[in-house]
């Protein structure tokens, strides 16, 4: 695959602008952007297992939560600096994803989806009942500082996650994952070690979610089981990836930018309104553009006719 330079140049320019941005922006906008980077990084991380590998995980928030708690515990109970606690938190989430993935990735379709949902719910319950996690009352991080370091950390994680997706879209390992998505038996017959590939993809996905969770914990300074293991966080990852285009590199990013902006505007009105909006977007996207924005960009055509065609495709 030949590298097209236009998107790379555009990416560099956007990054340069973002890198210089925090000084010039209002605190509110900085907070909004940190949140946006986090959601985009989560959408990209979900894309590794859900988009490329075709395993629709409905429980990726478990890795986000494990990363947040691992980092949080190291920061508070062991008094590690963030520079050590964050990579450790990411590693714990990665390991957790790998270990839980081994049995769970044997399941397919609905079974896998619900099993991952179960993992997230179970983790919330376990964290609720453990002493070291502060049980139901949660953990309070040391002190809140300037948000600027978190801005760069989240941005860094997002860039890394996006680059990994880019690598997957044009590498042997990535092709292996896509082969698994298209036809797992055929992939295995071609000599792909499917259990290993799937587990690695799941662990990679978990690592980025865990890193995002670790930064989240220190940034927000307070974590509790209900806030960190939210089903709605998983929905956001999924819907941003689907809205933009699953299995594409820029799709999840695009979806996050559009949906997080709208959602932010609505949540200034009422929090439940933002959630309601998320639900409606899920329904509308599935009906009208199941292949995401990326499809329209690729075809360079955005028409009502295409939307109606999508709507009629699967009806009974």
């Amino acid at each position, binding site marked *: 695959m030949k590298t097209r330079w236009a998107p790379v140049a555009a990416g560099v320019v956007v990054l340069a602008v973002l890198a210089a941005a925090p000084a010039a922006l209002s605190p509110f906008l900085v907070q909004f952007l940190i949140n946006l980077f986090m959601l985009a990084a989560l959408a990209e991380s979900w894309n590794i297992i859900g988009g490329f590998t075709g395993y*629709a995980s*409905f429980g990726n928030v478990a890795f986000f939560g494990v990363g947040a708690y691992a980092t949080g515990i190291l920061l508070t109970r062991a008094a590690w600096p963030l520079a050590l606690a964050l990579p450790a938190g990411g590693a714990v989430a990665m390991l957790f994803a790998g270990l839980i993935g081994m*049995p*769970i990735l*044997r*399941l*397919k*379709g*609905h*079974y896998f*989806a*619900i*099993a991952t*949902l*179960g*993992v997230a*719910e*179970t983790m919330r*319950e*376990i964290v*609720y*009942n453990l002493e070291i996690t502060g049980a139901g009352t949660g953990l309070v991080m040391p002190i809140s500082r300037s948000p600027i370091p978190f801005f760069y950390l989240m941005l860094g994680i997002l860039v890394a996650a996006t680059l990994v997706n880019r690598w997957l879209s044009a590498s042997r390992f990535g092709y292996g994952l896509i082969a698994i998505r298209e036809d797992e038996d055929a992939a295995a017959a071609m000599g792909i070690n499917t259990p290993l590939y799937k587990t690695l993809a799941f662990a990679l996905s978990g690592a980025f979610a865990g890193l995002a969770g670790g930064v989240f914990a220190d940034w927000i300074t307070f974590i509790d089981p209900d806030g960190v293991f939210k*089903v*709605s966080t998983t*929905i956001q990852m*999924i*819907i941003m990836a*689907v809205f933009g285009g699953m299995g594409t590199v820029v799709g999840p990013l695009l979806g996050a930018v559009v949906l997080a902006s709208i959602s932010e505007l609505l949540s200034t009105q*009422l929090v*439940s*309104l933002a*959630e*309601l909006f*998320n*639900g*409606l*977007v*899920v*329904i509308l996207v*599935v*009906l009208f553009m*199941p292949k995401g924005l990326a499809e329209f960009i690729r075809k360079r055509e955005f028409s009502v006719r295409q939307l109606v065609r999508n*709507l009629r*495709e*699967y*009806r*009974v």
Partner: protein
Amino acid sequence: MLALQVLINGILLGGLYGLMALGMSLIWGVMNIVNIAHGALIMLGAYLTFWLFTLWGWDPFVSLPVTIALLFVYGYCLQRYLLNLIVRAQLFLTLLITFGVEVVMVNLVRVAWSSDLRQVTPAYAGAHFKVGGITVPYVRLWVFLTTVILSVTFLLILEKTRLGRAIRATSEELRAARLAGIPVAHIYAITFGLGAALAGAAGGLWGMLFPITPIMGGGLTLKSFVVAVLGGLGTMMGAIVGGLVLGIAESFSATYLGPTYPNAISFGLLVLILIVRPTGLVGRRGSA
């Protein structure tokens, strides 16, 4: 003696789990939709019962047919005008859209009726009787008997009536059913309506035993799924057997391991059964 008491508690609760799973298993078996909004339908049934009880003083058992009828209509419309549009898409999309429906329902209820904990407390809520040292609360017994009546009625509809035959035919082979003159879109909608009605009934009964909140459905969707898989997918008897197994397992684990891990138990059971016996307890062939 304690063990017997725990067993009875488990069976009484298990009947309700079976009723929940029956609706989920029906929708899954006929249309291959795993309805994530199933718990939200249960929640809606519980709220309807609560409002009929609180506003008009209707006894929860008396209002049950009203709840069932309303949920049937709601489910029918949901399938006819929304889910039928997407029913032939890949699993991920049907799963996702019911996820969306769940989020919308939960948040609408939250906005309309707040997140407060609600309870249905008829005068006889605390009454119970004892047989040889075993305590049986009346409400739990009546709830159990109601689930038995509803389950049997439902199974009879599915097995013995023309409608039931049409549903089963559609589930077996969509195209052949259509050729035989079965209005498939209508049958799908009726199927979902029946599933929703069962969920609503389960919700109305659940509300007599446990508190009602907008988010109560999430865990119940998971439980319904576990029970449906446990018993064997698409087999209606399986859902009932699975419900009893989960009820008994939960009851024993709550007594002997502590009550803090209800979801972990059902989830552990799910993974176990998927690995050991993927076709379920009653199922015959694999459908994964």
